[in-house]
């Protein structure tokens, strides 16, 4: 399957995780990995699965590298009804009230333009004991399996 792996990051953790996911999936799939700061809403592609890894910063906000993308998306207000995406969040439960709001907000934004979310959003907690990849690899494998059916049907 063709996968566009996108990350939104502030201190680089999401980038590292995206690279790790890419290394996991590359053997069997065609994966391109990009910073959300280098991705425009016009580049969404109905034949690909878009996998997003995104952290949260400030007070429940999107990390710096995802902000221009979110702005561009709001400005373009495209119809994304044939676009499939899945999202994994990085956050820290020290920030109780806004835990993983970045990935949550981004998912809601995409859905509001009609994009189809594949699988559940899974989140990592920097204050927890799990390694991000231990959650993200099974998530990625599950998402890809789901998406193969969905996108296969759609195209």
């Amino acid at each position: 399957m063709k996968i566009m792996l996108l990350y939104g990051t502030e201190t680089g953790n999401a980038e590292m995780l995206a690279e790790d996911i890419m290394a996991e999936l590359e053997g069997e799939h065609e994966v391109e990995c990009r910073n959300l700061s280098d991705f425009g809403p016009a580049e969404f592609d109905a034949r690909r699965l878009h996998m997003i890894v995104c952290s949260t910063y400030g007070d429940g906000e999107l990390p710096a590298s995802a902000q221009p993308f979110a702005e561009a998306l709001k400005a373009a207000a495209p119809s994304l009804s044939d676009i499939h995406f899945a999202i994994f969040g990085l956050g820290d439960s020290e920030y109780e009230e806004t835990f993983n709001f970045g990935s949550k907000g981004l998912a809601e934004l995409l859905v509001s333009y009609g994009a189809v979310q594949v699988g559940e959003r899974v989140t990592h907690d920097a204050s927890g004991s799990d390694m991000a990849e231990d959650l993200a690899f099974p998530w990625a494998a599950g998402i890809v399996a789901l998406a193969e059916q969905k996108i296969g049907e759609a195209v």
Partner: protein
Amino acid sequence: MSRAVAIVGSGPSGCYLAQALLKADPQLRVDILDRLPVPYGLVRYGVAADHQGTKAVIRQFERLFERQGACFVGNVVVGEDVTLDELRQAYDAVVLAAGLSGDRALGIPGEHLEGVHRAGYLTRALYEHPDAEPLPQLGRHVVIMGNGNVAIDLLRLLAKTPGELAGSDLGPVPTDWLAGSGVETIDIIGRSPAADAKFDAVMIKELAKLEGVTIEVVGAGVSDDDEGAKKIAALDAIHGHKTGSRRVTFRFGLTPVRLEGKDGRVGEAVFQDANGGTMSLPCSAFITAIGFEAAAGLPRDELVGCAAELELGVLADGLYATGWFRRGPRGTIPDNRADAQLLAARILADLEASDTGLEKPGRHAFPQWTAAVCYDDWKRIDAAETASPPQDRCRVKIPSREAMLALARQTKEPDL
């Protein structure tokens, strides 16, 4: 032929720079020098012990040494063990990412009194920096002067009950020191109005979780400005938070004028308010958290003063600066990342343009660095620190340089 880059300082700026350089050109030889036997600068010794999530960037930096090929050269002081000129001879590029570890002085009468402490001195002692001095007696009434995130870190740690430090890497000595501090009141003073305070609103919000305090906010005021309004809203929200007897009071718009004391010990802090009036607070300890400046060692003022393009991080031909050393003591970990990524692009372009065809020796020019600590040595120290921490701690730092070096030099036992 591969080019050699020396980065002086293994804090976030140095590590992010190495990461960006090696990502773009995996062939580069990148050595990261540090005066300490242990890496990561203020991520280890500045970021608060109870903010372990923020320290998670260390996983990226580990990868830098474990997979990207960067080399850690610890326990080498640039300016003492090796001169800057010697480094510049041996490497194609030298980058100063040495941070700013000197505490700024307030410059008011009475600052020399006993009981007056500076934030860097205190945080180094709390986080067991090998060069730290012993933790001082604070007494019952603490005044913290300053309104940055560092001031809030200190306030939070002093205000926490022992149970609230679970999960941190605060060591046994600082833990006992905090538990037995006997601090009854903490006044935290900002020179500016609350709206212009340097702290982030989330740092204030976090205080709403404190379990043993009564918080009062005096004169937070109002603001039309978005950022200012956020801070004021956060302060308003914690005003009246009451979970215990330790009193925390926020005051704004007060300029410190002098410190007074008896028998050489501070007893009172005198301020001027916005209307020119005078107010004073009794205090047994006065902590200044008003920023940092260059410490002795590298001649920063001189180097930065005659920089070719300081904004871009270029000090001279083949000599660069990044992070706090370049920008001054402002900005968080992500700011250093952005700074480092820009500088990496510049260094790569300069290396490209200056290719002489001659291979520089890098660290091999310095066989005398026999006491240097490499990454594997550090991993032994790291393993010792994380092997068996108490149940409510994630790590027990080794506080002395001697003990660190002893572990570093312990070679692996041969397999029987």
